[in-house]
């Protein structure tokens, strides 16, 4: 039976961490049973299979945070070592309260890779002496804190984009704008990912448009492909995804509108009203902020809302109502 990958990785990690001098590939192969077994251990095919496996394993260990140095020894052979001083966790003194807060926070991830990374981080810290948080498991309604925040990640594009942002790699993907019939290809230098109101957005430099753009991950159709090469635009220190998204959502008002609203109806409109007065006959008159998308929202209230002004909003609402009345 083939030796499990975790066992092989563990052996490679221990060899690289334990050695006082860099080890050549040949030496590593002689020390690790799984490498000797590859391809029967001899012949050209076995050699190639071992080389591929070794390269992949090194990459995996680097993903796990191991710093592996590569040097050329006196015979001109490449040799490897994970030096103690570059791999050691500096002392972290967390008290019980800090440990509990961190443990609770680490549970927010619902995405496999980040959930795995967060619990891996806690395991490292615990192994290094972080106190264990009290478990409130005995009483489901009691416990330490009443709050359970969760970060949803349903978008397939999340993981490749997270890695692209981390490693600063340009990407291409098919993107469908909210009102477009067909997706178009975008070439983007990704900067940051931000989750706002439960949805993920990417901010980056759009190469075709030569400007900063914000993309909603759920509108990315198909795979995200990374491209070789460096960024062509400078990455800004501060990226404001939220402002762009709020503008899309019409939360940045550009004017005010005057509407009539039936009494008892439209609580969210009342909650945002700048002014409200009784208009008689069971109606109120409200002044509300007027931003992008207000027409669609007002139509939802059907006959309980009448737009008084401005005229363009009134016309948009009537237009929408006519479409539904005909439908």
């Amino acid at each position, binding site marked *: 039976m083939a030796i499990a990958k975790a066992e092989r990785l563990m052996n490679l990690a221990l060899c690289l961490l334990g*050695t006082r001098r860099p080890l050549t590939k040949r030496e590593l192969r002689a020390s690790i049973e799984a490498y000797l077994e590859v391809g029967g251990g001899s012949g050209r095919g076995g050699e190639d299979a071992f080389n591929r496996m070794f390269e992949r394993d090194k990459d995996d260990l680097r993903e796990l945070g191991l710093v592996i140095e590569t040097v050329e020894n006196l015979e001109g052979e490449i040799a490897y070592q994970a030096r103690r001083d570059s791999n050691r966790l500096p002392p972290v003194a967390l008290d019980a309260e800090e440990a509990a807060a961190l443990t609770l926070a680490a549970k927010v991830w619902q995405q496999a890779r980040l959930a795995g990374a967060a619990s891996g981080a806690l395991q490292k810290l615990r192994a290094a002496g972080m106190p264990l948080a009290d478990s409130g498991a005995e009483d489901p309604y009691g416990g330490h804190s009443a709050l359970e925040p969760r970060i949803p990640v349903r978008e397939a594009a999340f993981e490749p984009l997270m890695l692209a942002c981390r490693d600063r790699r340009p990407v291409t993907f098919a993107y469908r704008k909210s009102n477009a019939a067909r997706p178009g290809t975008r070439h983007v230098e990704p900067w940051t990912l931000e989750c706002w109101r439960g949805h993920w957005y990417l901010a980056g430099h759009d190469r075709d448009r030569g400007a900063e753009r914000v993309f909603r991950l759920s509108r990315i159709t198909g795979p995200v492909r990374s491209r070789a090469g460096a960024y062509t635009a400078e990455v800004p220190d501060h990226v404001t995804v939220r402002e762009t998204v709020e503008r899309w959502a019409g939360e940045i008002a550009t004017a005010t509108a005057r509407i009539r609203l039936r009494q008892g109806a439209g609580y969210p409109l009342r909650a945002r009203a700048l002014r409200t007065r009784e208009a008689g006959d069971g109606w109120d008159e409200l002044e509300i902020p007027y931003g992008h998308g207000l027409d669609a929202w007002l139509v939802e209230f059907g006959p309980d809302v009448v737009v008084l002004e401005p005229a363009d909003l009134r016309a948009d609402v009537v237009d*929408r109502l006519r479409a539904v009345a005909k439908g």
Partner: protein
Amino acid sequence: MATNAIDQTRRMLSLVTYLRERPGARVEDVARAFGITTDELISDLHVLPMCGTSFRGGDLLDIDTDGERIWWHNADAVGSSTGEPLRLAADEATALLVAARAVATLPGLRESDREALQRATAKIEAAAGESAGASSRLSVSFESEGGVFADVDRAIAERRRLWIRYYSPTRDTLTEREIDPIRLFAVGHTYVEAWCRLSEAHRTFRLDRVAEIRLLDEPSDPPPVELRDLSEGLVQPSAEDPQVVIEVGPGGRWVAEYYPHDSAEELPEGGLRITLRAPDPASLRRLALRLGRDGRIVSPSELADSAREAARAALAAYGD
């Protein structure tokens, strides 16, 4: 739960560190510290004795367990470098720091918890060094209504009943009800899971729809209920609910993003035919009105009719 090789390797490296410092550690305690089942731990303990710096030289980890305690017999012989605490990887630092910063922004968080989290964040940033850099490329904001949140949080801590005025968008009405709060959770928006004494049922309320809130003196007394499984998504329509079919043009594709649905078939010209389930199809009248020329209700016909009637009644006020 099946673990992948990467996560298992990560865990076993930490296990070695942990066990070096704690000879004779109890299986139960170690599993709890690592957030894994005892079975998962035992399977790791089967792998560790196969690991070391050379399988031929015999310097493998001599770790074994009697099922209750774990012993590492040659911890000193294998050299002090094996089992030193390892630095955090970039992904590990990112996952922890982004989560901690996000939770620290929750407006209703207890001040002592927030301060503990901020202290912890600063310490992790310092310890992670370079690995912490990439964590600025990911950020999460939770949204919650500060005042309402604080009252619900207090009610849960003091086990008190709440009175709320709650907005239902599907009916466009406010209702007054008493609820026994069970827990708060945040998935995009912030919600309270509670026993609703008006409907005598287990309900979830979105905090930004709470128009008014008051703490009552009566004790909260929710019957034992099964808490919602947050990993499944918030809306779980039942297969017995009536079916609704909606056809949208390109401008109405957002419906598929916001409404959980059974299917969404592509139509020519970038449209979609969306089939979803709703316990009360009439509640979708708002959606039908909102869609305007970007979509139409195919079935049930009562829903399409009620949207048409509402639109006609609304147009009458404009003299149309």
